[in-house]
């Protein structure tokens, strides 16, 4: 067993175990902590495969941005400490069956793809060629992402603004929380 394979086994077990932890943990904060380990494991997997820029981007954007957003959302919307929502056993059964079927189908496809001879291609290009590609040959996805980010920022700001006004209005008129429309 080479060093690459050993590192991959360790990383894959960490990723898989914490992904299961995200699914089965009851409180949202525990799910967030398990998701943290999953995302860090995926970032290290990118480093292991050889895509350093993507690993760094995963660490910065996912671990530093998205996860913090999720944790803040969990804190802002929790009714109390250790609040949980009951899930029926039937839902677990059906969800598990669907997930198992999807995993079986995808694993079959993966094994069939693995049968093909893969060339040991040179390492994927680093940050420099990637940046040049973003401004020359892959300009369209870059622009699409830029405009999309702008629209998303405006939309999120708009949603947050109306929310604030609705909360203020319902406080002033002392109306029931689900009745008042601004």
């Amino acid at each position, binding site marked *: 067993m080479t060093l690459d394979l050993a590192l991959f086994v360790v990383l894959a077990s960490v990723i898989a175990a914490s*992904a299961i932890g995200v699914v089965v943990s009851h409180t949202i904060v525990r799910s967030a902590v398990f998701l943290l380990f999953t995302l860090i494991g995926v970032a290290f997997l990118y480093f292991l*495969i050889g895509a350093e820029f993507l690993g760094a981007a995963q660490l910065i954007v996912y671990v530093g941005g998205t996860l913090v957003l999720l944790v803040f959302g969990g804190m802002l919307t929790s009714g109390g400490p250790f609040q949980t929502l009951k899930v029926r056993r039937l*839902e677990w059964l059906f969800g598990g069956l669907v997930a198992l079927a999807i995993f079986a189908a995808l694993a079959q496809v993966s094994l069939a793809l*693995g049968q093909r001879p*893969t060339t040991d291609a040179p390492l994927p290009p680093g940050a420099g060629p990637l940046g040049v590609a973003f401004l020359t040959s892959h300009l369209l996805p870059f622009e699409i992402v830029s405009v999309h980010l702008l629209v998303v920022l405006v939309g999120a700001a708009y949603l947050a603004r109306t929310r604030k006004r609705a909360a203020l209005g319902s406080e002033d008129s002392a109306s029931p929380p689900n009745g008042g429309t601004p």
Partner: protein
Amino acid sequence: MIPLSYILILSAFLFACGVLCIATKRNAIGILMGVELVLNAANINFVAFARYVPGFQMDGQVFAVMVIVLAAAEAAVALAIILNFYNNRNTVDVDEATQLRG
């Protein structure tokens, strides 16, 4: 060198976990976490093929960067919607979301 099918099976497992998370969680933020798992699984596939398929090296990484950015944007908008829903209904249980104008 890691075999390609190992990485693909890990990604399939992550995808199945995400689907299970989406299907079973009742907390809206838990569903968002399931979506993040699914997007990460897709991203692992992109990066793996960028590593092992010679003609796909640049495209795979560009797609992966796009997915990361879109996931961050999706989380921001979804969180704004969830906070709005929480302010209206005082809960984040998605089973309570049965009306468009709550």
